[in-house]
């Protein structure tokens, strides 16, 4: 009996302990929830509004920069007599799109969100910003952008934000990025005896050769060019850039409709003999040559591994976006120089008709932020969105803290960021890449490039061409899906037309509101011809790709 009593009292002491633990953890949770919700002020002061700002940018500096910006915003609003707390939420990128969709569907989204996903999701869940982008950004008062409209304050006049499927603006861009090469000066100096950085492809390949020889001579696993092989980002960048350097002038004449052109134009020209197929294959040959200096086994090496290899001092050059510049320069135990991607010149056998580096003006914009339709604080959300894209604050968050390029005009860069500024002193913008039709078929093209680099065929261009033709069924099936998608878009566009037409004919509207509906309807209908052109181009592409021959003309 006594043993049972002892056991019973042990059990009940154990249960009491468990209960105490549960209460403690519950109280901790309550405190954390209150803190996350904006602090006790929001609970004890009901007129304080809380807005949430969510994104997936977890890199150094980004969140810290926005914490400082948020503090400034709250103080400024308090001076205006508005009590507001801004909560910043950083969500890891891997789960962000699922989290975003859950938030939007669930009806309790954050008030300012980083956008990801399809045009349909944007159209369904996000506020269109067209009515607001023509106004000036009040937060630009006293800055060089004071007299610019919100749209014009951006470096590309918000072209990158325009959704092509709905001809609408659902977001604004926060930053810009350019592609640069990070060079390990110490290693290059040891291998070549000089600090001189390569300006041309010929010089670059020569340094790479010397790096490789140095590695063999010193039994060191030196990698001349470090790449992001796993996600094929480096290959894609190199292919785009050197295609532009070699074929940028095709945009001047390839299309019957104007400047630029689409893949169908290039293949049609090949089929009717007005374009030499070899021009399109020269970038492949160049990439095959550059690729000989990639790390062994590069297709399986991801960004983190490459950065690790770089920081270990064994990589000569690393090609990546400017968003990594600060960490590359700051975290390396050796001197790192940031240089432009080397230019292809006539000194190289393939550089006979090279056009120079690609102009980067108005390109590379990223960081789309918008306002969901279901926000409970639209006015504040819009105000905050304007705030973070204002001249002073965008520089604070992007340039000062994150060391990224701003998406705004008139920003002056200093120090190492000057090396990241877009190239604007060349005459050619990007070239239309006929092998890039987006989607899975383009990944196949990049896999083909990988295979060519690994297998080192005698004619990389021919191997690439034949591989591309072998994948025709995949491309054709993708194009067919695209055509169906465009037809669905035409249906949706008519839905927009109808909604805007009925909305604008409501007799109770003011003149201003009516004009807004008219303008939005106009934007929709101005997109109709563009959609038909997409449709025709894709059908034409399917036809021209089928006619391509394996042998040279």
């Amino acid at each position, binding site marked *: 009996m006594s043993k049972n009593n002892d056991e019973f009292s042990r059990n009940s002491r154990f249960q009491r302990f468990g209960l105490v633990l549960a209460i403690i953890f519950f109280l901790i949770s309550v405190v954390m929830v209150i803190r996350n919700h904006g602090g006790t002020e929001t609970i004890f002061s009901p007129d304080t509004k809380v807005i949430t700002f969510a994104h997936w940018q977890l890199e150094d500096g980004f969140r810290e920069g926005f914490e400082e910006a948020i503090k400034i915003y709250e103080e400024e609003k308090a001076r205006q007599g508005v009590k507001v707390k801004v909560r910043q939420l950083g969500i890891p990128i891997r789960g962000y799109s699922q989290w975003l969709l859950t938030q939007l569907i669930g009806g309790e989204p954050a008030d300012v969100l980083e956008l990801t996903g399809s045009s349909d999701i944007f159209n369904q869940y996000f506020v269109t910003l067209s009515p607001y982008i023509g106004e000036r950004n009040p937060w630009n008062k006293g800055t060089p952008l004071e007299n610019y409209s919100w749209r014009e304050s951006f470096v590309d006049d918000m072209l990158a934000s325009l959704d092509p499927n709905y*001809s609408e603006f659902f977001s604004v861009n926060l930053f810009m990025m350019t592609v640069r090469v990070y060079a390990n000066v110490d290693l290059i100096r040891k291998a070549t005896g000089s600090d001189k950085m390569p300006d041309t492809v010929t010089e670059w390949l020569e340094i790479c050769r010397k790096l490789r020889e140095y590695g063999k001579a010193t039994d060191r696993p030196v990698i001349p060019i470090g790449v992001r092989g796993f996600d094929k980002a480096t290959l894609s960048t190199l292919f785009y850039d050197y295609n532009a350097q070699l074929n940028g002038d095709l945009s001047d004449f390839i299309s019957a409709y104007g400047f630029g052109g689409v893949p169908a134009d290039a293949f049609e020209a090949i089929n009717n003999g007005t374009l030499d197929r070899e021009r399109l294959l020269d970038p492949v040959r160049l990439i095959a040559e550059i690729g000989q200096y990639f790390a062994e086994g590069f297709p399986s090496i991801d960004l983190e591994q490459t950065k690790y290899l770089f920081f270990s001092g064994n990589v000569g050059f690393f090609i990546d976006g400017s968003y990594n510049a600060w960490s590359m320069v700051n975290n390396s135990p050796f001197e790192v120089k940031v240089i432009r991607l080397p230019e292809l010149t006539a000194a190289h056998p393939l550089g006979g008709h090279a056009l120079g580096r690609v102009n980067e003006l108005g390109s590379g914009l990223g960081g789309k932020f918008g306002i969901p339709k279901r926000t409970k604080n639209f006015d504040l959300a819009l105000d905050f969105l304007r705030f973070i894209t204002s001249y002073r604050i965008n520089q604070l968050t992007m340039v000062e803290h994150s060391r990224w390029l701003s998406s705004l005009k008139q920003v002056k860069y200093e120090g190492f960021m000057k090396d990241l500024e877009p190239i604007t002193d060349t005459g050619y913008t990007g070239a239309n890449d006929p092998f890039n039709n987006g989607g899975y078929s383009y990944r196949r093209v990049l896999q083909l490039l990988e295979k060519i680099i690994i297998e080192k065929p005698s004619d990389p261009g021919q191997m690439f061409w034949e591989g591309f033709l072998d994948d025709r069924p995949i491309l054709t099936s993708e194009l067919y899906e695209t055509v*169906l998608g465009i*037809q669905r878009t035409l249906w949706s566009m008519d*839905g927009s037309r109808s909604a805007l037409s009925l909305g604008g004919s409501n007799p109770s509207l003011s003149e201003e509101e009516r004009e807004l509906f008219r303008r939005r309807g106009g934007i929709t*209908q101005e997109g*109709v011809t563009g959609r038909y052109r997409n449709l025709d181009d894709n059908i034409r592409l399917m036809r021209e790709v089928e006619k391509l021959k394996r042998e040279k003309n």
Partner: protein
Amino acid sequence: MFQMFRIPVLLTFVCGAFAAVGSDEAVDAIMKAYSDMNYPQARKLAAKLPEHPEARLVTALCDLYDRTSPQIERAQQELALLFREESLSVRLRSEAGLSLARTAQLMKERRDIYGNAADIYDHLALFREVEELVPDSAMARDAFLYRIREELEREESRDAAFDELERFIVEFKGDARLLTPLRQMAEYEYIRLRSDYANAVRHLEAACAEGFDNPSEARSASFRLAFLCDRKLKDRERGIRYYRKFISEYPFAALSIVAKRFLKELGEESVEVGDVEEQ
């Protein structure tokens, strides 16, 4: 006797007035929900006034355009009825007719999904009826835009379609800004079907003069005008004029670099980059 009925009659009038006002507010709410493309809300509100013409129209349009729960056959039948109901306002009838015609047209391009379901509607005839019902309006413009594209596609009707396109634009008495999408179509089709750059540029020039609602289209058209004048029409003078105009309007655009290069090739110095004009 009248005294006896005075109050009930008064009450009836008052209730009727409130009902009318309430009904107007309800209709406004339905239209607002639909114009926001909030289909579930629009449907829900319209279900409260099932016999009201606006509610019927909105319900049918939601059935047509709401991809989460489409009821296309039912929607088109209702739209066909609404289009023929002469007692309804022209605005409602034309919207019903235009949506019916357009969706029937698109369904005929997807027979793999819709089979022959849309064959009962002569969409081309419906487009014409809408054009006649609301001439010189945005709806007439849209009906014509959708119809003429199809007519131009057919070789046998192509020449007549081009003539009709020119006639429509010349005779259009509504707001000239409404013609911009048609001029875009004209520009594209003149090049695609006839390689006729003179007419294409004529329409593009007029569209640029009338203005675009989409600032990106405006910019793209501005550059394209310069390019086509220079490269296709070999009209050096107009090419230079329009390149310079583009550079002064869009100094920070990527294409301004290209415009400067083209000016250089034409032997001209480019304009100084200045501030963007205020809107």
